[in-house]
């Protein structure tokens, strides 16, 4: 079976400015692949290269076994794409836009389209400019999914969506993968990818720094934790816990960084009365940095 996406030293420079610097990527058919990286890392550049919107400075790309430049039309026929910045002429209804895009695809299954529209809760009769950002994103999602493409390339698909819709999107992506479609989605938030992807690649400064199973990433991710207890707690009670770093206790309040499994930590704090608990994912940039230095350490 041909791989869904493969790039070899894919490179893109905008004049002297780096867009992508030798990206090697491989996405297997039927998987949900999270393409993670901070803003400006080269995620959108990669996606645009895959769709032949941009032309590479060096290296090569292959999508569904096709070369973007030579077989762009055939390739795009089999791909559903959601741009990171979904902007369309606002003086039309979603129905008109979707009809146009469907015509460009040689017609689509109307029932499936209607089911998608209903699923995301979109009113297709409203002009697009009077839709909220979240509702516009729904239009973008519908047009990407509507022709049941073999490969979905989604650039920051959940941006602007409320939590309920994010969950709906995750369900759609998982169903797509279950029916054999491949999903390639970019994000700058780990938790978004965690919820849905099988594997994730991490891109930083135009290069792929790591590829791993999402569970592995999660185990390695660091969370900033702040807990307020009912009563002051002794710091020693937590000092022995594995994977806890930067521990500080001040009166009733505990702060620390939790790495990997939370099990032992949760069982320990459960012995005290917990008034509130705040757990924040670490900034992605920091996490990548931690990940990256880890890898270096291991090699050394």
């Amino acid at each position, binding site marked *: 079976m041909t791989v869904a996406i493969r790039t070899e030293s894919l490179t893109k420079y905008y004049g002297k400015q780096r867009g992508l610097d030798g990206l090697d990527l491989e996405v297997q058919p039927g998987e949900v692949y999270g393409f993670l990286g901070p803003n400006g890392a080269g995620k959108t550049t990669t996606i645009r290269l895959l769709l032949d*919107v941009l032309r590479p400075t060096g290296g090569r790309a292959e999508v569904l076994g096709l070369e973007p430049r030579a077989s762009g039309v055939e390739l795009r026929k089999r791909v559903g794409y959601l741009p990171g910045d979904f902007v*369309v002429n606002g003086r039309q209804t979603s129905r008109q836009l979707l009809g146009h895009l469907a*015509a*460009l695809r040689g017609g689509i299954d109307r029932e499936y389209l209607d089911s998608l529209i209903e699923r995301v809760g979109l009113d297709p009769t409203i002009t697009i400019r009077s839709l909220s950002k979240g509702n516009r994103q729904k239009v973008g999602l519908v047009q990407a999914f509507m022709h049941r493409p073999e490969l979905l390339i989604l650039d920051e698909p959940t941006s602007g969506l409320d939590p309920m819709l994010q969950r709906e999107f995750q369900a759609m992506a998982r169903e797509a993968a279950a029916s054999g479609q491949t999903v390639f989605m970019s994000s700058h938030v780990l938790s978004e990818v965690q919820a849905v992807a099988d594997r994730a690649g991490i891109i930083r400064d135009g290069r792929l720094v790591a590829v791993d199973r999402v569970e592995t990433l999660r185990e390695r991710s660091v969370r900033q934790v702040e807990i307020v207890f009912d009563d002051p707690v002794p710091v020693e009670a937590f000092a022995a816990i594995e994977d806890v770093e930067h521990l500080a206790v001040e009166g009733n309040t505990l702060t620390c960084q939790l790495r990997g499994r939370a099990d032992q930590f949760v069982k320990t704090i459960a012995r005290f009365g917990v008034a509130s608990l705040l757990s924040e994912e670490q900034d992605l940039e920091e996490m990548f940095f931690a990940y990256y230095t880890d890898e270096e350490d291991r090699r050394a």
Partner: protein
Amino acid sequence: MRKTAVLEITRKALWDQRKNLLGWAIGLAGATFIYTGVYGIFDPTEFDSIVESLPEEFLEAFGWDNFASPSGYLGSTVYGLVIPILTVVFAIAFGTRLLAADEEAGTLELTATCPVSRISLVLQRVMAVAVACFGMATVVFAVVALLSGPVSLNVPLENILAASFQLAMLALVFGSLAVAIGGFIGRRGLVIGAAAAVAVVSYFGSTIVPQISGLAWFQNFSVFYYYGGATVLEEGFAAGNALILIGLSVVFVAVAAFGFNRRDIGTA
């Protein structure tokens, strides 16, 4: 394999711009109506006395040297100055809107990521420009033809038709020029500026510049010279000039397709 709907991009471009197109059509119809209608009101001899008081070079520059005859009047007004300029302005604006402005707004990306080739995209957009240019010229033709009886213009209908065809081709040359520049630069302002500059130079190149002694040859480089609406009204369809305009449009379309096919979209 399912087939893409034929000229769907052309259809959509025209549909999206329907209000804009209607506005221009009404404007052109109104201007044509006023200019043509005025002919019935004025006494040609009064024109003559005004015209005689003006310097000859000025008259020739603006094609007003033959005001009193019906075809002369029509060639100096409707097919001479205001309507061709308005139509060219429309064509440049429309040609820019359909490629460069679409790209600058970021809305071209979604179309370009549909299963359509870059060349097909450009050709279908140019087709929309062509339909619009011929539509505008048809409006002008219809108004002149309808009024020619009531104001006793006495210009042969086929000459009016020929001049209107030249008007459409003049517009298409500049419309496809705007698309051609847009094929290389995805910036609205730059494309309008460059195309307008060519139009201005071309216009004066067929009017004022040839009046300067020794510079008459310059008109051979002017699109407006090959348009020659006034001459066509007098003498009928000029196939050679029409072919030059058609040829120029074809070249611009090819240049547009060439430029657009080889570059990045949305980074300029």
